[in-house]
Protein backbone atom coordinates (compact mmCIF):
# COMPACT_ATOMS: atom_id res chain seq x y z
CA UNK A 1 0.00 0.00 0.00
CA UNK A 2 2.76 2.43 0.85
CA UNK A 3 5.16 1.52 -1.94
CA UNK A 4 5.75 5.20 -2.68
CA UNK A 5 7.71 5.63 0.54
CA UNK A 6 10.35 3.16 -0.55
CA UNK A 7 10.98 4.97 -3.80
CA UNK A 8 11.17 8.35 -2.16
CA UNK A 9 13.60 7.13 0.51
CA UNK A 10 15.93 5.49 -1.97
CA UNK A 11 17.42 8.80 -3.12
CA UNK A 12 20.58 9.82 -1.28
CA UNK A 13 22.50 13.08 -1.66
CA UNK A 14 25.41 11.27 -3.37
CA UNK A 15 23.06 10.34 -6.23
CA UNK A 16 22.07 13.88 -7.02
CA UNK A 17 22.87 15.17 -10.46
CA UNK A 18 25.22 18.13 -10.68
CA UNK A 19 23.52 21.48 -10.36
CA UNK A 20 22.25 23.07 -13.52
CA UNK A 21 24.27 25.75 -15.27
CA UNK A 22 26.04 27.92 -12.78
CA UNK A 23 25.80 31.58 -13.56
CA UNK A 24 28.05 34.53 -12.99
CA UNK A 25 26.73 36.62 -10.14
CA UNK A 26 26.99 40.22 -11.18
CA UNK A 27 24.94 42.83 -9.31
CA UNK A 28 23.50 45.37 -11.69
CA UNK A 29 23.59 48.15 -9.18
CA UNK A 30 27.32 48.63 -9.66
CA UNK A 31 26.83 49.17 -13.39
CA UNK A 32 23.99 51.60 -12.99
CA UNK A 33 24.11 55.14 -14.13
CA UNK A 34 21.36 57.62 -14.79
CA UNK A 35 18.80 59.30 -12.65
CA UNK A 36 17.79 56.61 -10.20
CA UNK A 37 20.02 56.63 -7.10
CA UNK A 38 21.27 53.24 -6.03
CA UNK A 39 19.16 52.10 -3.09
CA UNK A 40 21.06 51.51 0.13
CA UNK A 41 21.11 52.59 3.75
CA UNK A 42 23.42 55.37 2.59
CA UNK A 43 20.87 56.60 0.04
CA UNK A 44 18.21 56.74 2.77
CA UNK A 45 20.53 58.86 4.84
CA UNK A 46 21.32 61.16 1.92
CA UNK A 47 17.63 61.48 1.10
CA UNK A 48 17.00 62.64 4.65
CA UNK A 49 19.20 65.70 4.09
CA UNK A 50 18.76 66.21 0.34
CA UNK A 51 15.12 67.18 0.66
CA UNK A 52 12.42 66.70 -1.97
CA UNK A 53 13.50 65.75 -5.48
CA UNK A 54 16.11 63.23 -4.33
CA UNK A 55 14.06 60.20 -5.28
CA UNK A 56 13.65 59.92 -9.03
CA UNK A 57 11.04 58.03 -11.08
CA UNK A 58 12.03 54.39 -11.60
CA UNK A 59 11.90 54.90 -15.34
CA UNK A 60 10.88 57.99 -17.20
CA UNK A 61 9.91 59.31 -20.59
CA UNK A 62 12.56 58.08 -22.98
CA UNK A 63 12.19 59.48 -26.51
CA UNK A 64 11.61 57.03 -29.33
CA UNK A 65 14.57 57.06 -31.73
CA UNK A 66 14.55 56.14 -35.41
CA UNK A 67 16.68 53.01 -35.18
CA UNK A 68 17.68 50.43 -32.61
CA UNK A 69 19.87 47.32 -32.43
CA UNK A 70 17.08 45.43 -30.69
CA UNK A 71 13.41 46.33 -30.48
CA UNK A 72 11.48 44.35 -27.88
CA UNK A 73 7.71 44.37 -28.20
CA UNK A 74 5.99 44.25 -24.83
CA UNK A 75 7.14 45.79 -21.52
CA UNK A 76 6.03 42.96 -19.30
CA UNK A 77 8.23 40.70 -17.23
CA UNK A 78 9.77 38.82 -20.16
CA UNK A 79 10.35 41.87 -22.37
CA UNK A 80 11.94 43.92 -19.60
CA UNK A 81 14.05 41.01 -18.36
CA UNK A 82 15.27 40.34 -21.90
CA UNK A 83 16.18 44.01 -22.30
CA UNK A 84 17.98 44.02 -18.96
CA UNK A 85 20.06 40.94 -19.79
CA UNK A 86 20.85 42.15 -23.31
CA UNK A 87 22.20 45.38 -21.85
CA UNK A 88 23.99 43.92 -18.84
CA UNK A 89 25.30 40.56 -20.05
CA UNK A 90 25.81 41.18 -23.76
CA UNK A 91 26.61 44.89 -23.88
CA UNK A 92 23.94 45.68 -26.48
CA UNK A 93 23.72 49.45 -26.59
CA UNK A 94 20.62 50.56 -28.43
CA UNK A 95 17.59 48.72 -27.05
CA UNK A 96 13.97 49.83 -27.06
CA UNK A 97 11.07 48.19 -25.25
CA UNK A 98 7.81 49.23 -26.91
CA UNK A 99 4.66 48.85 -24.86
CA UNK A 100 1.12 49.29 -26.12
CA UNK A 101 -0.17 50.48 -22.76
CA UNK A 102 1.81 50.78 -19.51
CA UNK A 103 4.73 48.92 -17.97
CA UNK A 104 3.48 45.89 -16.06
CA UNK A 105 -0.12 46.33 -17.18
CA UNK A 106 -0.48 42.81 -18.59
CA UNK A 107 0.10 39.39 -17.09
CA UNK A 108 3.07 40.35 -14.92
CA UNK A 109 0.57 42.26 -12.81
CA UNK A 110 -2.23 39.68 -13.07
CA UNK A 111 -0.68 36.42 -11.91
CA UNK A 112 -0.85 34.77 -8.49
CA UNK A 113 2.85 35.51 -7.73
CA UNK A 114 3.85 31.87 -7.18
CA UNK A 115 7.40 30.75 -8.00
CA UNK A 116 8.48 27.10 -8.03
CA UNK A 117 10.48 24.70 -10.18
CA UNK A 118 8.77 21.37 -9.47
CA UNK A 119 8.12 20.32 -13.07
CA UNK A 120 8.39 16.71 -14.17
CA UNK A 121 10.21 16.97 -17.50
CA UNK A 122 13.96 17.71 -17.44
CA UNK A 123 13.67 20.38 -20.15
CA UNK A 124 11.22 22.23 -17.93
CA UNK A 125 12.55 21.61 -14.44
CA UNK A 126 16.13 22.63 -15.28
CA UNK A 127 14.84 25.83 -16.86
CA UNK A 128 12.52 26.68 -13.98
CA UNK A 129 15.26 25.77 -11.48
CA UNK A 130 17.51 28.29 -13.21
CA UNK A 131 14.69 30.80 -12.74
CA UNK A 132 14.26 29.91 -9.07
CA UNK A 133 17.98 30.36 -8.39
CA UNK A 134 17.82 33.75 -10.04
CA UNK A 135 14.74 34.67 -7.97
CA UNK A 136 16.81 33.98 -4.86
CA UNK A 137 19.28 36.75 -5.69
CA UNK A 138 17.12 38.99 -7.87
CA UNK A 139 16.62 41.70 -5.26
CA UNK A 140 20.38 42.31 -5.03
CA UNK A 141 20.87 41.81 -8.79
CA UNK A 142 18.35 44.56 -9.54
CA UNK A 143 19.04 46.62 -6.43
CA UNK A 144 15.29 46.53 -5.92
CA UNK A 145 13.37 44.53 -3.33
CA UNK A 146 11.14 42.04 -5.14
CA UNK A 147 10.15 40.41 -1.83
CA UNK A 148 11.08 36.83 -2.68
CA UNK A 149 9.55 34.71 0.04
CA UNK A 150 10.59 31.02 0.04
CA UNK A 151 7.63 29.88 2.08
CA UNK A 152 7.29 26.47 0.39
CA UNK A 153 4.83 25.10 -2.15
CA UNK A 154 2.80 21.97 -1.36
CA UNK A 155 0.93 19.84 -3.90
CA UNK A 156 -1.69 17.70 -2.22
CA UNK A 157 -2.28 13.98 -2.69
CA UNK A 158 -5.71 12.58 -1.92
CA UNK A 159 -4.99 8.91 -2.60
CA UNK A 160 -2.15 6.42 -2.81
CA UNK A 161 -2.34 6.80 -6.57
CA UNK A 162 -1.70 10.54 -6.19
CA UNK A 163 1.24 9.76 -3.92
CA UNK A 164 2.76 7.55 -6.60
CA UNK A 165 2.44 10.42 -9.07
CA UNK A 166 3.97 12.92 -6.67
CA UNK A 167 6.77 10.50 -5.77
CA UNK A 168 7.57 10.13 -9.45
CA UNK A 169 7.75 13.90 -9.87
CA UNK A 170 9.71 14.29 -6.63
CA UNK A 171 12.22 11.65 -7.70
CA UNK A 172 12.68 13.34 -11.07
CA UNK A 173 13.38 16.61 -9.23
CA UNK A 174 15.79 15.12 -6.70
CA UNK A 175 17.72 13.34 -9.42
CA UNK A 176 18.17 16.78 -10.98
CA UNK A 177 19.38 18.27 -7.70
CA UNK A 178 16.19 20.23 -7.09
CA UNK A 179 14.64 20.25 -3.65
CA UNK A 180 11.55 18.10 -3.21
CA UNK A 181 10.18 16.39 -0.13
CA UNK A 182 7.46 13.80 -0.10
CA UNK A 183 5.35 14.35 3.00
CA UNK A 184 2.91 11.96 4.61
CA UNK A 185 -0.29 13.25 6.16
CA UNK A 186 1.23 14.07 9.54
CA UNK A 187 4.13 15.93 7.95
CA UNK A 188 1.76 17.96 5.74
CA UNK A 189 -0.29 18.98 8.77
CA UNK A 190 2.87 19.86 10.70
CA UNK A 191 4.10 22.03 7.86
CA UNK A 192 0.75 23.69 7.21
CA UNK A 193 -1.13 23.68 10.53
CA UNK A 194 -3.78 25.99 9.08
CA UNK A 195 -5.28 23.01 7.23
CA UNK A 196 -8.40 21.61 8.79
CA UNK A 197 -7.33 18.13 9.88
CA UNK A 198 -10.25 17.05 12.02
CA UNK A 199 -13.22 18.10 9.90
CA UNK A 200 -15.16 15.75 7.66
CA UNK A 201 -13.78 15.56 4.13
CA UNK A 202 -14.99 13.75 1.10
CA UNK A 203 -11.38 13.51 -0.06
CA UNK A 204 -8.98 13.35 2.86
CA UNK A 205 -5.39 14.53 2.48
CA UNK A 206 -3.06 11.54 2.25
CA UNK A 207 0.18 13.46 1.77
CA UNK A 208 1.91 16.00 -0.37
CA UNK A 209 4.98 17.04 -2.29
CA UNK A 210 6.77 20.03 -0.84
CA UNK A 211 9.25 22.28 -2.58
CA UNK A 212 10.67 24.29 0.34
CA UNK A 213 12.41 26.91 -1.85
CA UNK A 214 9.26 27.63 -3.80
CA UNK A 215 7.10 30.49 -2.67
CA UNK A 216 6.04 33.91 -3.74
CA UNK A 217 7.49 37.09 -5.25
CA UNK A 218 5.87 40.53 -5.35
CA UNK A 219 4.83 40.62 -9.01
CA UNK A 220 4.56 44.39 -9.58
CA UNK A 221 7.97 44.89 -7.99
CA UNK A 222 9.44 42.54 -10.59
CA UNK A 223 8.19 44.71 -13.46
CA UNK A 224 9.24 47.92 -11.71
CA UNK A 225 12.63 46.54 -10.67
CA UNK A 226 13.49 45.33 -14.17
CA UNK A 227 12.22 48.58 -15.72
CA UNK A 228 14.38 50.62 -13.35
CA UNK A 229 17.48 48.47 -13.84
CA UNK A 230 17.07 48.42 -17.64
CA UNK A 231 16.57 52.19 -17.77
CA UNK A 232 19.72 52.68 -15.71
CA UNK A 233 21.59 50.58 -18.29
CA UNK A 234 20.37 52.84 -21.09
CA UNK A 235 17.33 50.95 -22.38
CA UNK A 236 14.54 53.11 -23.81
CA UNK A 237 11.16 52.07 -22.40
CA UNK A 238 8.44 53.59 -24.58
CA UNK A 239 4.91 53.32 -23.22
CA UNK A 240 1.73 53.98 -25.17
CA UNK A 241 3.41 52.78 -28.38
CA UNK A 242 1.56 49.97 -30.12
CA UNK A 243 3.35 47.81 -32.70
CA UNK A 244 1.06 47.35 -35.69
CA UNK A 245 3.24 45.70 -38.30
CA UNK A 246 6.62 44.33 -39.30
CA UNK A 247 8.57 45.45 -42.37
CA UNK A 248 10.95 43.14 -44.14
CA UNK A 249 13.22 43.19 -47.17
CA UNK A 250 15.01 40.28 -48.84
CA UNK A 251 13.87 37.79 -46.21
CA UNK A 252 15.12 39.89 -43.29
CA UNK A 253 13.02 41.99 -40.94
CA UNK A 254 14.03 45.64 -41.13
CA UNK A 255 11.82 47.31 -38.55
CA UNK A 256 8.42 47.67 -36.96
CA UNK A 257 5.47 49.91 -37.69
CA UNK A 258 4.16 51.52 -34.53
CA UNK A 259 1.45 53.95 -33.54
CA UNK A 260 4.27 56.51 -33.26
CA UNK A 261 5.76 55.80 -36.66
CA UNK A 262 8.27 53.46 -38.20
CA UNK A 263 11.24 52.24 -36.14
CA UNK A 264 14.21 50.54 -37.76
CA UNK A 265 15.49 47.47 -35.93
CA UNK A 266 18.36 45.03 -36.43
CA UNK A 267 16.47 42.45 -34.40
CA UNK A 268 12.92 42.24 -33.11
CA UNK A 269 11.74 40.27 -30.08
CA UNK A 270 8.06 39.62 -29.43
CA UNK A 271 7.34 39.17 -25.73
CA UNK A 272 3.61 39.77 -25.92
CA UNK A 273 2.10 37.29 -23.48
CA UNK A 274 -1.48 36.54 -24.35
CA UNK A 275 -1.23 38.06 -27.82
CA UNK A 276 1.54 35.96 -29.38
CA UNK A 277 -1.05 34.44 -31.70
CA UNK A 278 -1.82 37.86 -33.21
CA UNK A 279 1.80 38.53 -33.98
CA UNK A 280 2.00 35.10 -35.60
CA UNK A 281 -0.96 36.15 -37.75
CA UNK A 282 0.81 39.42 -38.51
CA UNK A 283 3.73 37.38 -39.91
CA UNK A 284 1.32 35.16 -41.81
CA UNK A 285 1.66 32.13 -39.53
CA UNK A 286 -0.77 30.15 -37.45
CA UNK A 287 1.08 29.30 -34.25
CA UNK A 288 0.37 26.27 -32.06
CA UNK A 289 -1.16 28.63 -29.52
CA UNK A 290 -4.69 29.16 -28.27
CA UNK A 291 -5.48 32.13 -26.03
CA UNK A 292 -7.46 31.34 -22.89
CA UNK A 293 -8.48 33.24 -19.78
CA UNK A 294 -7.16 32.43 -16.34
CA UNK A 295 -8.74 34.03 -13.30
CA UNK A 296 -7.38 35.09 -9.97
CA UNK A 297 -8.97 36.75 -6.97
CA UNK A 298 -7.98 38.16 -3.61
CA UNK A 299 -9.94 38.49 -0.38
CA UNK A 300 -9.98 41.30 2.13
CA UNK A 301 -6.77 41.42 4.20
CA UNK A 302 -6.62 39.36 7.37
CA UNK A 303 -3.94 38.59 9.93
CA UNK A 304 -1.35 35.96 8.96
CA UNK A 305 -3.17 32.67 8.44
CA UNK A 306 -1.60 30.74 5.58
CA UNK A 307 2.09 30.06 6.03
CA UNK A 308 2.82 28.42 2.68
CA UNK A 309 1.52 28.02 -0.88
CA UNK A 310 -1.20 25.38 -1.07
CA UNK A 311 -1.73 23.77 -4.48
CA UNK A 312 -4.79 21.58 -4.78
CA UNK A 313 -5.14 20.27 -8.33
CA UNK A 314 -7.63 17.45 -8.81
CA UNK A 315 -10.40 16.47 -11.18
CA UNK A 316 -13.16 17.66 -8.84
CA UNK A 317 -11.66 21.07 -8.19
CA UNK A 318 -8.57 23.13 -8.59
CA UNK A 319 -7.26 25.96 -6.46
CA UNK A 320 -3.93 27.37 -5.42
CA UNK A 321 -4.02 29.53 -2.34
CA UNK A 322 -1.52 31.79 -0.64
CA UNK A 323 -1.58 34.88 1.52
CA UNK A 324 -0.01 38.08 0.28
CA UNK A 325 2.18 40.21 2.51
CA UNK A 326 -0.67 42.69 2.67
CA UNK A 327 -2.83 39.94 4.19
CA UNK A 328 -5.19 39.18 1.34
CA UNK A 329 -5.76 35.53 0.47
CA UNK A 330 -4.86 35.13 -3.20
CA UNK A 331 -6.55 32.31 -5.11
CA UNK A 332 -6.46 30.99 -8.63
CA UNK A 333 -7.64 27.89 -10.43
CA UNK A 334 -8.18 26.37 -13.82
CA UNK A 335 -8.66 28.08 -17.19
CA UNK A 336 -12.15 29.28 -18.09
CA UNK A 337 -12.09 26.64 -20.82
CA UNK A 338 -12.39 28.33 -24.21
CA UNK A 339 -10.45 30.90 -26.27
CA UNK A 340 -11.14 34.46 -25.23
CA UNK A 341 -9.64 37.94 -25.12
CA UNK A 342 -12.41 39.54 -23.10
CA UNK A 343 -10.59 39.36 -19.73
CA UNK A 344 -14.06 38.72 -18.32
CA UNK A 345 -13.86 35.73 -16.01
CA UNK A 346 -16.64 33.16 -16.02
CA UNK A 347 -18.68 32.89 -12.85
CA UNK A 348 -18.62 29.09 -12.77
CA UNK A 349 -14.82 29.02 -12.60
CA UNK A 350 -14.74 31.57 -9.80
CA UNK A 351 -17.28 29.49 -7.90
CA UNK A 352 -15.18 26.36 -8.48
CA UNK A 353 -12.00 28.03 -7.17
CA UNK A 354 -13.73 29.42 -4.09
CA UNK A 355 -15.45 26.11 -3.29
CA UNK A 356 -12.17 24.24 -3.55
CA UNK A 357 -10.31 26.79 -1.43
CA UNK A 358 -13.02 26.68 1.25
CA UNK A 359 -13.00 22.88 1.22
CA UNK A 360 -9.27 23.06 1.90
CA UNK A 361 -9.46 25.88 4.43
CA UNK A 362 -13.00 26.14 5.89
CA UNK A 363 -11.93 29.18 7.91
CA UNK A 364 -11.91 31.21 4.66
CA UNK A 365 -15.67 30.87 4.28
CA UNK A 366 -16.54 34.16 6.01
CA UNK A 367 -14.15 36.29 3.96
CA UNK A 368 -15.23 38.64 1.21
CA UNK A 369 -13.59 38.78 -2.19
CA UNK A 370 -12.05 42.18 -2.65
CA UNK A 371 -10.87 41.99 -6.25
CA UNK A 372 -11.25 39.52 -9.05
CA UNK A 373 -9.66 39.62 -12.49
CA UNK A 374 -8.62 37.55 -15.50
CA UNK A 375 -5.60 37.49 -17.78
CA UNK A 376 -5.03 36.12 -21.26
CA UNK A 377 -2.82 33.03 -21.41
CA UNK A 378 -0.97 31.79 -24.46
CA UNK A 379 -1.72 28.08 -24.24
CA UNK A 380 0.63 26.04 -26.41
CA UNK A 381 -0.31 22.61 -27.69
CA UNK A 382 2.01 20.82 -25.27
CA UNK A 383 1.82 23.13 -22.26
CA UNK A 384 5.43 24.34 -22.49
CA UNK A 385 6.77 27.69 -23.61
CA UNK A 386 8.44 28.77 -26.87
CA UNK A 387 11.61 30.86 -27.20
CA UNK A 388 12.80 30.68 -30.79
CA UNK A 389 13.16 32.48 -34.08
CA UNK A 390 9.90 33.22 -35.84
CA UNK A 391 9.76 33.27 -39.63
CA UNK A 392 12.80 35.55 -40.06
CA UNK A 393 16.35 35.02 -38.85
CA UNK A 394 16.28 38.24 -36.86
CA UNK A 395 12.78 37.96 -35.39
CA UNK A 396 12.37 36.16 -32.09
CA UNK A 397 9.38 35.02 -30.11
CA UNK A 398 9.29 34.68 -26.34
CA UNK A 399 5.84 33.39 -25.57
CA UNK A 400 3.45 30.51 -25.12
CA UNK A 401 4.00 30.61 -21.38
CA UNK A 402 0.77 28.80 -20.47
CA UNK A 403 0.52 28.93 -16.66
CA UNK A 404 4.27 29.27 -16.15
CA UNK A 405 5.09 32.80 -17.27
CA UNK A 406 5.66 34.73 -14.09
CA UNK A 407 7.84 32.18 -12.34
CA UNK A 408 10.06 31.95 -15.44
CA UNK A 409 10.85 35.64 -15.87
CA UNK A 410 14.51 35.82 -14.74
CA UNK A 411 15.56 32.67 -16.62
CA UNK A 412 13.52 33.63 -19.67
CA UNK A 413 15.17 37.05 -19.84
CA UNK A 414 18.68 35.61 -19.57
CA UNK A 415 18.12 32.77 -22.05
CA UNK A 416 16.23 34.89 -24.57
CA UNK A 417 18.91 37.60 -24.39
CA UNK A 418 21.60 35.00 -25.14
CA UNK A 419 19.65 33.72 -28.14
CA UNK A 420 19.09 37.24 -29.47
CA UNK A 421 22.65 38.43 -28.86
CA UNK A 422 24.60 35.36 -30.00
CA UNK A 423 22.15 33.72 -32.36
CA UNK A 424 22.52 30.41 -30.54
CA UNK A 425 19.98 29.11 -28.06
CA UNK A 426 21.51 28.21 -24.68
CA UNK A 427 21.05 24.60 -23.54
CA UNK A 428 18.27 25.55 -21.14
CA UNK A 429 15.93 26.46 -23.99
CA UNK A 430 17.32 24.33 -26.80
CA UNK A 431 14.26 22.07 -26.70
CA UNK A 432 11.72 24.90 -26.58
CA UNK A 433 11.64 25.56 -30.30
CA UNK A 434 8.68 26.41 -32.47
CA UNK A 435 9.49 23.47 -34.73
CA UNK A 436 9.15 20.85 -31.99
CA UNK A 437 5.46 20.51 -32.77
CA UNK A 438 6.25 19.57 -36.34
CA UNK A 439 9.10 17.21 -35.52
CA UNK A 440 7.21 15.50 -32.70
CA UNK A 441 9.61 16.47 -29.89
CA UNK A 442 6.81 17.76 -27.69
CA UNK A 443 7.33 18.77 -24.08
CA UNK A 444 3.96 17.56 -22.88
CA UNK A 445 4.22 17.94 -19.12
CA UNK A 446 0.63 16.86 -18.60
CA UNK A 447 0.61 14.07 -21.18
CA UNK A 448 -2.64 15.46 -22.51
CA UNK A 449 -2.13 15.79 -26.24
CA UNK A 450 -2.64 18.91 -28.37
CA UNK A 451 -5.44 20.43 -26.30
CA UNK A 452 -4.98 23.14 -23.67
CA UNK A 453 -8.27 22.13 -22.05
CA UNK A 454 -9.34 18.58 -21.32
CA UNK A 455 -11.62 18.23 -18.35
Amino acid at each position, binding site marked *: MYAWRLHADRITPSQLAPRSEARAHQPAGALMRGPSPRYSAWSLLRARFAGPGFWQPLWHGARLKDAYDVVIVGAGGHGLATAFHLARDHGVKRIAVLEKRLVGYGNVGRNTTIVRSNYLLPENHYFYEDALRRWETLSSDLNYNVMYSPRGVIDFALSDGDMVDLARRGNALRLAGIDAELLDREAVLRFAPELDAGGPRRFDIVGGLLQPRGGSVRHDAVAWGYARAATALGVDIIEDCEVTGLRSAAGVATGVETSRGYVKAERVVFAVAGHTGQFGQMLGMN*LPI*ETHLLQAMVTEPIKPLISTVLVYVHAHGEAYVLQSDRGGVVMGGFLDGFPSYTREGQWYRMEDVVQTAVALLPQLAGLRILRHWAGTNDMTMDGSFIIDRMRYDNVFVNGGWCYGGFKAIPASGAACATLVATGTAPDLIRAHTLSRFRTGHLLDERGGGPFPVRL
Partner: protein
Amino acid sequence: MKRLSCPFCGSRELEEFLFHKTLPEPGSDAYAAVYERVNRLDDSHEYWQHVHGCRAWLYVRRNPSTGEVHETVLLGGSTP
Protein backbone atom coordinates in the same frame (compact mmCIF):
# COMPACT_ATOMS: atom_id res chain seq x y z
CA MET B 1 -20.42 35.71 -23.07
CA LYS B 2 -22.48 33.89 -20.45
CA ARG B 3 -24.73 31.56 -22.44
CA LEU B 4 -24.76 29.53 -25.63
CA SER B 5 -27.79 28.62 -27.63
CA CYS B 6 -28.17 24.89 -28.31
CA PRO B 7 -30.32 24.03 -31.35
CA PHE B 8 -32.19 21.44 -29.27
CA CYS B 9 -32.22 22.88 -25.78
CA GLY B 10 -32.30 26.62 -26.40
CA SER B 11 -30.25 29.18 -24.50
CA ARG B 12 -28.29 27.47 -21.72
CA GLU B 13 -25.56 28.41 -19.28
CA LEU B 14 -22.06 28.23 -20.70
CA GLU B 15 -21.02 25.76 -18.00
CA GLU B 16 -23.09 23.06 -19.70
CA PHE B 17 -20.92 23.21 -22.80
CA LEU B 18 -17.41 21.94 -23.43
CA PHE B 19 -15.13 23.70 -25.87
CA HIS B 20 -13.24 21.19 -28.01
CA LYS B 21 -11.01 23.08 -30.46
CA THR B 22 -10.90 25.78 -33.08
CA LEU B 23 -11.37 24.71 -36.68
CA PRO B 24 -8.26 24.41 -38.84
CA GLU B 25 -7.97 26.56 -41.91
CA PRO B 26 -9.44 24.92 -45.01
CA GLY B 27 -6.78 22.98 -46.89
CA SER B 28 -4.54 22.46 -43.84
CA ASP B 29 -2.18 19.50 -43.83
CA ALA B 30 -2.34 16.96 -41.02
CA TYR B 31 0.22 18.79 -38.89
CA ALA B 32 -1.56 22.12 -39.16
CA ALA B 33 -4.95 20.54 -38.50
CA VAL B 34 -3.70 18.97 -35.26
CA TYR B 35 -1.33 21.57 -33.84
CA GLU B 36 -1.86 24.98 -35.38
CA ARG B 37 -4.62 27.32 -34.30
CA VAL B 38 -6.18 30.21 -36.17
CA ASN B 39 -5.85 32.71 -33.34
CA ARG B 40 -7.58 35.90 -34.42
CA LEU B 41 -8.79 38.72 -32.23
CA ASP B 42 -12.14 39.19 -33.92
CA ASP B 43 -13.29 35.85 -35.26
CA SER B 44 -13.16 32.28 -34.02
CA HIS B 45 -14.66 29.12 -35.54
CA GLU B 46 -14.97 26.38 -32.98
CA TYR B 47 -16.29 22.93 -32.13
CA TRP B 48 -18.21 22.67 -28.89
CA GLN B 49 -20.29 19.93 -27.30
CA HIS B 50 -23.34 20.29 -25.09
CA VAL B 51 -21.90 17.73 -22.65
CA HIS B 52 -24.17 18.45 -19.71
CA GLY B 53 -27.29 18.56 -21.87
CA CYS B 54 -28.28 16.80 -25.07
CA ARG B 55 -24.62 16.00 -25.92
CA ALA B 56 -24.98 17.41 -29.42
CA TRP B 57 -21.81 18.55 -31.22
CA LEU B 58 -21.95 22.17 -32.30
CA TYR B 59 -20.16 24.53 -34.61
CA VAL B 60 -19.88 27.95 -32.99
CA ARG B 61 -18.70 31.16 -34.62
CA ARG B 62 -17.99 34.00 -32.22
CA ASN B 63 -15.88 37.05 -31.52
CA PRO B 64 -13.33 36.20 -28.81
CA SER B 65 -12.65 39.88 -28.03
CA THR B 66 -16.25 40.83 -27.28
CA GLY B 67 -17.74 37.42 -26.48
CA GLU B 68 -20.46 37.94 -29.05
CA VAL B 69 -21.79 34.65 -30.52
CA HIS B 70 -22.60 34.97 -34.22
CA GLU B 71 -23.76 31.49 -35.04
CA THR B 72 -24.44 28.10 -33.44
CA VAL B 73 -25.01 25.23 -35.84
CA LEU B 74 -25.66 21.55 -35.20
CA LEU B 75 -22.84 19.51 -36.71
CA GLY B 76 -23.93 16.87 -39.18
CA GLY B 77 -27.40 18.32 -39.30
CA SER B 78 -29.22 21.22 -40.83
CA THR B 79 -29.17 24.71 -39.38
CA PRO B 80 -32.11 24.95 -36.99
